[in-house]
């Protein structure tokens, strides 16, 4: 049961960390629970469907369907996070001011919450489909219901607990810096997801690696350790990255940062326009 629980935990953890960042970034938004909940629900359903069609997906596009599918949904998540981060850069200041002034919920307005719903759904779908396949295998090899149910419960409870720890940790950031902090976190999250997408495209031989192993920091922080895995999800840490992964990481981070600067300033403080 411990083995089952640990595997479920590792997968739940990755999704939970992403959900935590999204929850922090949507702090104070009325009805955000419904958005996040819908994302988790859609992701869970999607995970079951993807697991069911795993053979068909794997066999598609002459055997690289699994990589293309993963890379596509990862890049979709990157685009959604980028869109939201840039939107927040241009509206975050007003949001923070409104929250400080009123001290209560802020209307979502034109904020692209659907983008974050998709990010949550994708995170849950990716990790969830692995859990479903694993548990299906366990059940088929005769594991007892108690063992499987216990493993699921252990994994979900522990994974969600770590997610809550991160969430409440983030809430301690002073309100003045809060939205810019969560926005930078979203930027790093997107860059990390882009790096993962690149890894799948290298694995499928769609893209060249540009150097298989640019560095090896596994002796300092292994990908498989709890902290290594958490950082892998949060900021895209990879103990042995390929050159193409670093390229995807840098391009995504720069593109979102540039977008935040450009649009953040365009809509930014009125002092700028009055001075001009």
């Amino acid at each position, binding site marked *: 049961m411990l083995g089952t629980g640990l595997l479920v935990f590792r997968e739940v953890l990755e999704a939970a960390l992403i959900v935590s960042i999204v929850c922090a970034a949507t702090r104070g938004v009325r009805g955000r629970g419904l958005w996040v909940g819908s994302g988790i629900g859609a992701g869970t359903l999607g995970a079951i469907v993807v697991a069911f069609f795993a053979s068909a997906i794997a066999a598609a596009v002459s055997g690289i369907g699994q990589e293309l599918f993963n890379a596509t949904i990862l890049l979709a998540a990157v685009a959604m996070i980028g869109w939201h981060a840039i939107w927040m850069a241009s509206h975050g200041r007003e949001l923070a001011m409104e929250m400080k002034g009123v001290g209560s919920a802020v209307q979502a307005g034109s904020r692209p919450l659907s983008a974050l719903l998709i990010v949550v759904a994708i995170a849950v779908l990716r990790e969830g489909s692995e859990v479903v396949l694993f548990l299906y295998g366990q059940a088929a090899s005769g594991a007892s219901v108690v063992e499987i149910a216990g493993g699921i419960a252990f994994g979900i409870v522990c994974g969600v607990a770590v997610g809550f720890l991160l969430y409440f940790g983030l809430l301690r950031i002073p309100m003045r810096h809060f939205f810019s902090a969560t926005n930078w976190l979203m930027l790093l999250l997107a860059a990390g997801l882009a790096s993962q997408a690149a890894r799948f495209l290298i694995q499928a031989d769609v893209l060249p690696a540009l150097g298989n192993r640019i560095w090896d920091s596994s002796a300092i922080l292994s990908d498989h350790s709890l902290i290594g895995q958490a950082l892998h999800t949060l900021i895209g840490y990879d103990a042995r990255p*390929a050159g193409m992964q670093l390229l995807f990481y840098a391009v995504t981070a720069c593109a979102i940062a540039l977008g935040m600067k450009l649009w953040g300033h365009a809509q930014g403080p009125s002092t700028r326009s009055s001075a001009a």
Partner: protein
Amino acid sequence: MIAAKNSKSGALLAIGLVLAGSTAWAEDYDAKLVIRDHKFEPVELTVPAGQKIKLLVDNQDATPEEFESNELNREKIVTGKGTITVFLGPLDAGRYPFFGDFHQETAQGVLIVK
């Protein structure tokens, strides 16, 4: 801080491009692994260094497995009775452990690159 991170990535990227440029394109080397009773066969698979490897993983069990390796930076699900292809390398000589994520107690193996 972010800018520093990016410029560092940029420098590393430049090194990466040089490394990639120095690797000559060659034919892929075909290698094969079988999964049976949640174990890899062969447990030690030897492949040549400096050549791209096309690794076929044939899962003869009825249950799904995930071929995974931290050293090779690869992970891919193999459904029950399914086969997958994973591209690796070109690799430097050395030992690269891999495992089946769904049955880690038994599904362990090493890729030996010579």
